[in-house]
């Protein structure tokens, strides 16, 4: 029996990576990480994932890029980013100084683009992992095009796999009929973990001006609205693959995060919650710890995947 012990929050992910706790922050919702330093010590996070990086800087979509919906938001940022070179040169040293554990979310229009970005970030010895964004709904080429079928994902992952020795995570789209088979294809192609879900494709229009609200017409839906969908998909995928699953989608607090761990996720990512509460992610770390303490559970590993079906 565990009495007043500090629960062990560390979790083991694929590719030999162990992180101090299961709480990560989601790509595109955490900038390059340093922006959160005024709110808390970012080294307290299990891992932070930076904004999707591409080979060259990307201008992104014209405004309006975001729109609030019922308990959610649409975004069509179009992957505006500073490009992999500036990231490695300017951002990495500062993340290292901050003692942060960080992973790079990468994106390209072609498999060659992905390979190039993967190769470049792999040179960063402090980089914890590479997360392949094969599911961005807001760019015309790449992204979701690869992530919508088992074959597409397999081809992409195989190629990136050959270019990196880093733990390789593949981020999956929820806009598919059978996310399990796509996750399986990623596993078979050499992914060390899968991350899901990316945003659901959504749309908003103004009934008076008769125009789409977003310049991009459609956008990605995130936030608590999508949590039930995310939880179901994570649960599904956890039963279909052996590699670790990183759960994401609408997590606002520790209770939500625990639910993803309960259905089998090895770690979670906090996305949109960072906007309404910049301290959300660190509060999730604290909340998970106190839950385990209260319930006298020795470790996250003991809790993970213990959903009782009968």
């Amino acid at each position, binding site marked *: 029996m565990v009495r007043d012990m500090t629960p062990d929050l560390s979790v083991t992910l694929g590719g030999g990576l162990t992180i101090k706790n299961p709480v990560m922050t989601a790509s*595109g*919702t*955490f*900038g390059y990480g340093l*922006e*959160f330093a*005024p*709110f808390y010590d970012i080294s307290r996070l299990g891992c932070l994932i930076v*904004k999707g990086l591409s080979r060259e800087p990307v*201008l*992104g979509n*014209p*405004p*309006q*890029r*975001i*729109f*609030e919906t*019922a*308990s*959610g*938001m649409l*975004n069509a*940022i179009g992957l*505006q980013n500073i490009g992999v070179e500036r990231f490695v040169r300017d951002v990495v040293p500062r993340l290292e100084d901050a003692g942060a554990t960080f992973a790079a979310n990468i994106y390209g229009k072609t498999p060659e683009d992905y390979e190039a970005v993967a190769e470049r970030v792999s040179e960063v010895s402090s980089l914890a992992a590479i997360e392949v964004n094969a599911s961005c709904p807001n760019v015309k080429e790449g992204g979701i095009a690869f992530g919508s079928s088992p074959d597409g994902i397999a081809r992409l992952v195989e190629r990136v796999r050959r270019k990196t020795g880093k733990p390789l995570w593949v981020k999956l789209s929820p806009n598919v009929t059978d996310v399990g088979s796509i996750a399986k294809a990623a596993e078979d192609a050499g992914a060390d973990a899968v991350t899901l879900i990316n945003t659901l494709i959504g749309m908003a229009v103004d009934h008076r001006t008769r125009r789409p609200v977003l310049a991009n017409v459609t956008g990605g839906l995130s*936030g*608590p*609205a999508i949590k039930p969908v995310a939880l179901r998909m994570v649960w599904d995928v956890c039963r279909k693959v052996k590699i670790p699953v990183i759960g994401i989608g609408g997590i*606002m607090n520790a209770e939500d995060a625990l639910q993803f761990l309960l259905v089998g996720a090895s770690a979670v990512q906090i996305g*949109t919650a*960072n*906007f*309404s*509460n*910049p*301290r959300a992610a660190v509060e999730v770390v604290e909340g998970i710890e106190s839950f385990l303490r209260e319930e006298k559970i020795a470790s996250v590993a003991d809790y993970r995947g213990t959903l009782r079906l009968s």
Partner: protein
Amino acid sequence: MGFRHGTIVRNEGHGTIFYRMEVALPEPVQFVPGQFAMLSGWPGNDPLLPRPFAIYRAASAGGRHSVEFVYKVVGRGTALLSGLHGGDPVSVTLPLGRGFDLSGEGRTWWLVGGGVGFSTVFPAADSLGHRKGGFELFLGGRTRDQLPPKDWTPGGHTAGRLHLCTDDGTAGFHGTVVDAIRERMKGMGVSDLARVTILACGPRPMLKGLAELAAGAGVAMQASLENHMACGFGVCWGCVAAIRDGEATAYRRVCKEGPVFNAMEVVW
């Protein structure tokens, strides 16, 4: 910059359309005029996102700290805010963004507020009021009811420096603030104009009109832009505006590189 849990001290309607909210905070707030806060004060996840409001005033006395906002009810979030009572909890992240650059010495400052935009320029007026030369204030509203309450107006007592403008002529100058500035420029020489800096906040068409006028007259102008925001501190890239970057156009974050931009660089 910080994320704080505050408590409403006062939240009252003034005149016909403006509310003023004072929030007690655990720590003092220092801010540059034009900076803003992300504010939310509702339970549940709908609305989900906090709302951006200019910091109207900050005060510390006897170990008590507070910050004030002035807002207009335009939609769901502001309607909810207007229903809050003293004692109710709110969350704020502040101070955010880049405010007005008030560094020029010996300049002539024209402060322009359209609609609730005055909430962004009044703090600048408070700052400039202490300087020699002071400022002139142009306030526009559709009708007289849409002008800020008299007793809020900085330097409102100094006749001649305050230009009230209404679209319908029910108070002050009959016309927009752009028209009023055009009038004001009449007869001014090139070198006088070159000493003027306009600080403006208001609806985009007003800002655009002003920027064109200013560009033509060789007047400097800083414009405080608005855009939908998710985070307010530069991490979502949701709030960008098109800003000239040499020959090219870049998308700059209104919450981080702005909300105050050099009006001459904004792609209107």
